[in-house]
């Protein structure tokens, strides 16, 4: 029994060694940077796994799945660095991989701290207005100090660092709506609904609706970040269905989203309209609006089932290959089967998360876990769907794989909270 518990870690180490050894040979077997990177990654993963295993810190599969995803992501980023270097005639222009490793270390530490802190502190469910304030503060900060990058105003640049607040907004948003859903009267019909009412509608339902649409509106209309806005709506809508809220609330929401969508379509035709028409037929404007999708589709198609092999492809030809389009780069060099594997890994992650949520007995933690897992699942769906031209493309990151400090950090905090929910307390039961 003990031996099988360590087999997944062995495969992760093997993937790292194969990937980095190939990169090492590819750049002439002289530069040992990649071997050191490989050593660091393997050590971090193994030590962290042993630590979690021996301290009995909740669910281990979450960490295993994520460390595999991060490994694949970092190998791909190293490859993209090399491709960009080759394309710019030997000049080193990007340093995505090394930064990503740094962010991975920071993320792991954050993960550990989150698991401990979130597991020990008990009053998270009562901080509804704190989360709300923090969300709006972050949105306001982005609007005031934000810089416009690629048509979206979602970056705050401080000196050398740039932060994407929408990643953090996501977490506070999930916690905030969890506070609301976990305080619902529940399925017990005998219990009386004691909530305050305003014209027959419970007041907290109104507050929630205003909060959700304010967040979405601010993100979509002012920051033009439609990906995150869509994500927030999907989380909220999924929670509405899971918690069997009244049909009235669902209808209001469907009406609301249709309204927001239409307003967006007509007011911001240059932003949304381009994306929708690029999705319908990217070949209409192959050098303009459809360029990204066409490059991504060509990359995936040239890879085939097993890929062209690490080092044989052209990942630098896909725009934003290091962030939004990393899935296309993975499919090109490592093959469609690795792409399927990545999707399967996210599937496992979501499955474990839902399982943890079902087992948990604390209403707020159950709800928080479910909403965060929904967030990771939908985020993956939105970006992979966009890259393979299943749905219109909106730029958000692929959690744990894409390059980006904010994304990495936020994803690890989310994972930490989910793990903390699975944390067994002293009685040996799940909370």
């Amino acid at each position, binding site marked *: 029994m003990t031996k*099988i518990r360590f087999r*997944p870690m062995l495969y992760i180490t093997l*993937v790292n060694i*194969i990937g980095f050894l190939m990169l090492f040979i590819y750049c002439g077997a002289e530069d040992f940077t990649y071997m050191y990177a490989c050593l660091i990654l393997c050590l971090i993963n193994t030590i962290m796994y042993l630590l979690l295993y021996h301290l009995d810190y909740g669910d281990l*599969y979450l960490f295993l*799945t994520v460390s595999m995803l991060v490994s694949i992501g970092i190998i791909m980023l190293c490859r993209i660095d090399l491709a960009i270097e080759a394309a710019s005639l030997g000049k080193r222009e990007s340093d995505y991989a090394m930064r990503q490793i740094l962010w991975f270390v920071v993320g792991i530490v954050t993960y550990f701290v989150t698991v401990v802190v979130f597991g020990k502190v008990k009053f998270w469910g009562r901080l509804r207005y704190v989360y709300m304030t923090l969300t709006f503060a972050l949105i306001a900060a982005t609007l005031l100090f934000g810089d416009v990058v690629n048509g979206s105003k979602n970056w705050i640049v401080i000196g050398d660092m740039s932060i994407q607040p929408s990643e953090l907004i996501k977490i506070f948003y999930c916690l905030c709506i969890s506070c609301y859903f976990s305080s619902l009267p529940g399925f017990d019909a005998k219990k009386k609904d004691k909530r305050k009412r305003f014209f027959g509608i419970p007041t907290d339902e109104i507050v929630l609706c205003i909060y959700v649409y304010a967040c979405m509106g601010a993100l979509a209309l002012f920051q033009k970040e439609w990906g995150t806005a869509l994500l927030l709506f999907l989380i909220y809508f999924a929670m509405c269905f899971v918690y069997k809220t009244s049909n009235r609330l669902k209808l209001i929401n469907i009406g609301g989203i249709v309204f927001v969508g239409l307003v967006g379509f007509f007011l911001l035709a240059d932003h949304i309209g381009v994306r929708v028409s690029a999705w319908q037929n990217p070949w209409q404007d192959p050098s303009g609006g459809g360029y990204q999708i066409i490059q991504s589709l060509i990359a995936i198609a040239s890879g085939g089932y097993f890929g062209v*092999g*690490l080092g044989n492809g052209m990942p630098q030809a896909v725009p934003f290959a290091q962030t939004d389009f990393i899935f296309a780069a993975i499919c090109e060099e490592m093959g469609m089967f*690795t792409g399927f594997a990545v999707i399967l890994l996210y599937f496992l992650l979501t499955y474990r998360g839902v399982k943890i949520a079902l087992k948990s007995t604390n209403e707020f933690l159950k709800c928080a876990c479910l909403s965060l897992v929904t967030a990771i699942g939908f985020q993956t769906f939105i970006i992979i769907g966009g890259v393979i031209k299943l749905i219109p493309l909106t730029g958000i990151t692929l959690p744990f794989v894409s390059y980006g400090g904010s994304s990495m950090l936020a994803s690890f905090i989310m994972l930490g909270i989910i793990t903390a929910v699975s944390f067994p307390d002293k009685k040996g039961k799940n909370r």
Partner: protein
Amino acid sequence: MYEILADVVKYIFVFVVYMFILSIVRLIYLDISDAKRREATSGTGFAYLKLVNLRRNLKFKMHESYSIREDALIGRSKRCQVYIDDPYMSKNHARIFLRDGAFYIEDLDSTNGSFLNGRRLPKHAVRLKDSDKLSFGNISFIFVDNLEAEN
């Protein structure tokens, strides 16, 4: 040259990634079947075995207690109701069974023997009393009999 190498390695890479997924799925499957078995044996049990050792010090996964209904096999085989992955255990080590309202323990010809209150079990079955101490390999249990405690 490198292209050919990359061409070969890509198959190995995909294979390893899928082996990883398989190993995770297998672990999850084992956990689920484990939990189901625990659920099936708990609740209505007349008696249970309570672990004496500290779980932290053991090299293998154990539960705090194992419920016993009418008949329970103890051993290293996965079909045993009380499955203990201790190298000192035999595949089918011992058996606890209910006869005429009392529990009996019988050693199934194990290599290292079973001990009841520190004494090695004889060939024939021995009647168990509430709070008897049972030892197999490295593991010790306290036998708790709900029926006897109620009477």
